[in-house]
């Protein structure tokens, strides 16, 4: 076997780092939950023991794992936070607001440091915050009750391990072992890696110190210090796993070199670690990329099965029924089983959305303080499960909406009182799953979006919305004939034609807010000034195949509704045909399918309109949008997409059927075009485009697509934009 060279090392390290990031994410989430619970105890000294212990565990674990990957800044900071928690518990110190802030800031900084490490970015120096914590700890020490101890560190009761560790601290060194582990490929093949060893050692005793070091040969080794309360003289099974060990007599100098265990009272962690490891034993941490791979394989299976199905159908005429039927039944059974398999894999990828929601507690808390507002955050449906891929991408959009709500939406307390509203504003975050979609709502009871202001702002910035005929339908009046925009010539649409506020509906308002470059005066302040404008929010959500809706009422509040497919990989779709081409339309975006007689179509200023449910419904023909050949037809099929004033019918030659499709994303910008969300294969090897129904329903976009295909001149600056924002 070859000696682990630098390449092997970096492989080990990379694998190990992935685990580190995943694990620290868990502990940070735990810490955030703990801190929220702790906040109720500000100004109190009798803090719920369980909350403190839980937090302590989180920071202790973060310290340990950060030490192992050599993220010293995180290790030191976590250690300092641990010390403060210990002071709170052992000295029954009063939790000061400053202390609470420092803990929250510390959790934030830890997260930042870890992600900086992940991004190979320069690491922020935690010294300032650590000094702050230090001062807070000193204050707690000075104010601590002196009744039950005179020696400094206070013990709440006899505890053999603590006693022994304190003995250790003064250099006794009893029952402390040093373990050295050198990862090797052959060990790794048996599943023995540093995480495994660490877990094993945690069962031996308390893991006091863990750190990687470079061996003289240039390899990587890990060293651990473990203290045990039991008299053990050897660890044969660990030795078999490549671990060398030696009883450690800690000299004061060595004690100082380890993580400062003497500086503060020490917590016995053995029991809790065992609890953790037994809980973790039936959980498996899986790299998302592996699940993606699995999903892709399921997708391939779905395609193969549909090929098989195709063949079976062809055979129907050629085979006698008794021969053919079992074939067909097997094919159908496979379809059901594949569906189950697909759902199983999907379920593995699902995580509760709660983690994002919980983070918002901190955002709201910080921002409310910064803007001197009173805001409470109500969460519901945080158990709703959503694809891990989506969770990661939803963080920024939700963050932005919540920030906006606090900074722009909610009024100052006095203003609210004057308006007869409760002083404290409310932001509600709700999540729910319905069929194949998930709905996330962010609602505030603030002042609402000021349409006048938005319009003025948009006008000042030269941002246009689609032109509307004079006397256009009022707010929320439904799809009336008069609400259809004027002549479809592209040039006219590029004119910035903005009506008065009363003539703009919320969909148009949203369009303006989400226009590239749109910003409100407060955009430059800290809350929103992180480069994530509403344009990015809406692009992100569209990119995920979702939709964004806005409801707002002056003085009452604002509601943003995000609707997303549960998963991106496989979806139910309608297969339609237009101009001799097939297209797939994700069923989640289709509200209804109708048949239209050609004679029902009325022409209104070049727009096709039909009467549908007593109202006028604009009808877009896919053949015209895409410049495809058009036959004379007596009837069409159409599917209805969009909502409110953006409801349109998209007419196609006919709807061929409904089936499950495997969504392949289009990555190359050359083929990313407005109105197309991806491609799929229906079993014959041909690529079939998946329509982005929401984009087709957006009037401006639909026309832009049509304009291109009709060969109308397009302004050169626009042509690039329409492509890149697609």
């Amino acid at each position, binding site marked *: 076997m070859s000696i682990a060279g630098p390449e092997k090392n970096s492989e080990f390290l990379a694998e190990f780092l992935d685990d580190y990031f995943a694990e620290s994410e868990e502990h940070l989430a735990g810490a955030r939950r703990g801190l929220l619970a702790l906040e109720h105890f500000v100004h109190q000294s009798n803090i719920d023991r369980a909350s403190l212990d839980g937090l302590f565990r989180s920071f202790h674990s973060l310290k340990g794992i950060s030490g192992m990957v050599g993220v010293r800044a995180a290790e030191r900071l976590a250690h300092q936070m641990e010390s403060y928690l210990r002071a709170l518990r052992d000295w029954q110190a009063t939790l000061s607001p400053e202390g609470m802030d420092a803990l929250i800031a510390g959790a934030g900084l830890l997260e930042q440091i870890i992600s900086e490490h992940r991004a190979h970015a320069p690491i922020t120096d935690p010294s300032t915050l650590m000094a702050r914590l230090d001062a807070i700890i000193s204050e707690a020490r000075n104010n601590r009750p002196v009744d039950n101890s005179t020696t400094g560190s206070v013990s709440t009761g006899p505890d053999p391990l603590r006693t022994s560790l304190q003995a250790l601290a003064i250099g006794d060194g009893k029952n402390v072992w040093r373990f050295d582990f050198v990862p090797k490929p052959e060990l790794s093949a048996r599943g023995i890696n540093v995480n495994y060893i660490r877990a094993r050692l945690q069962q031996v005793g308390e893991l006091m110190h863990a750190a990687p070091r470079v061996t003289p040969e240039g390899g990587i080794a890990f060293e651990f210090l473990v203290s045990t309360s039991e008299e053990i003289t050897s660890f044969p099974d660990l030795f078999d796993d490549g671990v060398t060990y030696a009883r450690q007599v800690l000299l004061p100098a060595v004690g100082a070199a380890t993580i400062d265990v003497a500086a503060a009272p020490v917590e016995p962690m053995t029991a809790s670690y065992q609890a953790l490891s037994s809980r973790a034993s039936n959980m498996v941490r899986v790299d998302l990329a592996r699940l993606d791979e699995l999903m*892709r394989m399921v*997708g*391939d299976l779905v395609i193969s099965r549909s090929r098989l199905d195709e063949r079976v159908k062809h055979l129907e005429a050629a085979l006698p029924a008794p021969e053919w039927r079992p074939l067909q039944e097997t094919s159908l059974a496979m379809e059901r089983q594949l569906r189950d398999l697909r759902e199983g894999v999907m379920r593995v990828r699902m995580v509760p959305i709660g983690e994002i929601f919980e983070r918002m507690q901190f955002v709201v808390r910080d921002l409310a303080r910064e803007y001197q507002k009173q805001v409470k955050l109500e969460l519901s449906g945080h158990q709703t499960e959503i694809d891990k891929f989506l969770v990661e991408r939803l963080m920024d959009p939700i963050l932005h909406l919540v920030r906006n709500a606090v900074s722009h939406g909610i009024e100052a307390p006095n203003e609210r009182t004057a308006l007869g509203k409760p002083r404290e504003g409310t932001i509600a975050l709700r999540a729910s799953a319905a069929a194949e979609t998930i709905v996330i709502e962010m609602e505030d009871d603030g002042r609402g979006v000021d349409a006048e202001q938005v319009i003025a702002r948009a006008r000042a910035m030269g941002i246009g919305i689609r032109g509307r005929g004079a006397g256009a339908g009022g707010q929320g009046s439904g799809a009336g004939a008069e609400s259809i925009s004027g002549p479809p010539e592209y040039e006219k649409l590029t004119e910035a034609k903005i009506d008065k506020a009363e003539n703009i509906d919320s969909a148009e308002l949203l369009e303006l807010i989400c226009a590239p470059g749109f910003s409100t005066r407060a955009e430059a302040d800290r809350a929103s000034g992180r480069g994530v404008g509403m344009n990015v929010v809406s692009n992100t959500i569209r990119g995920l195949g979702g939709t964004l809706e806005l409801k707002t009422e002056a003085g009452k509040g604002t509601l943003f509704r995000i609707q997303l497919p549960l998963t991106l990989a496989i979806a139910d779709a309608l297969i339609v045909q237009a101009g001799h*081409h097939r297209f797939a339309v994700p069923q989640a975006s289709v509200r209804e399918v109708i048949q239209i007689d050609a004679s029902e179509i009325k022409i209104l200023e070049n727009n096709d309109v039909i009467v549908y449910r007593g109202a006028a419904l604009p009808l877009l023909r896919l053949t015209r*949008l*895409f*410049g*495809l*050949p058009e036959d004379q037809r007596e009837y069409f099929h159409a599917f209805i997409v969009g909502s409110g004033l953006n409801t349109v019918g998209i007419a196609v030659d006919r709807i061929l059927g409904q089936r499950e499709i495997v969504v*392949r*994303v*289009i*990555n*190359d*910008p*050359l*083929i990313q*075009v*407005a*109105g*197309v969300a*991806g*491609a799929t*294969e229906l079993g014959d*090897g*041909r*690529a*079939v*485009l998946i329509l982005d129904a929401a984009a087709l329903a957006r009037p401006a976009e639909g026309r832009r*697509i049509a304009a*291109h*295909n*009709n*060969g109308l001149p*397009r302004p*050169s600056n626009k*042509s*690039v934009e329409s*492509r890149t924002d697609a």
Partner: protein
Amino acid sequence: MLEEQNGSKTFIIFELAGTTYAVRSRLVQQMEMIEEITPVPNAPASVEGVVFSRGRVIPALNLRVRFGFERIPIDLRTRLIVIEVGERNVGLIVDSAREFISIEASAIQPPNEAISGLSGKYIEGIAAVDNRIVLILDLRQVINLAEILIGDQPAPSGAQPAKQG
């Protein structure tokens, strides 16, 4: 791995509008006959459409249109050369292709403006192989996004996609 040995490099040779071109074989993923290209509405003129290649959706770029030659119908000799450059996979539609050759590094000269013609800016070198002049393409330039997206005009109305072979 075979590549840089003995100072020679391996190339795939193809024909386009009577000219012989070469692309580095290490950038070529595969070569296939063209069965079906799905046109994409509103794509640049040189983008014939999309195809599936190894489960991925990739653009099929008509190299004739890209280099300003006349578009010809797809036939049995037409090939799709799937290249991988950076993170991108693109299929190049060429008149015909089959050869795999190795060219001595010393036989490759920098492009001479006088012979490079229309496709000049996409040429990274010229080599003489068995009495043939071979133009070695700079694939990064060939699939340059900014140029195709801005420079290409959208396909005219009703532009017919490639005939199905």
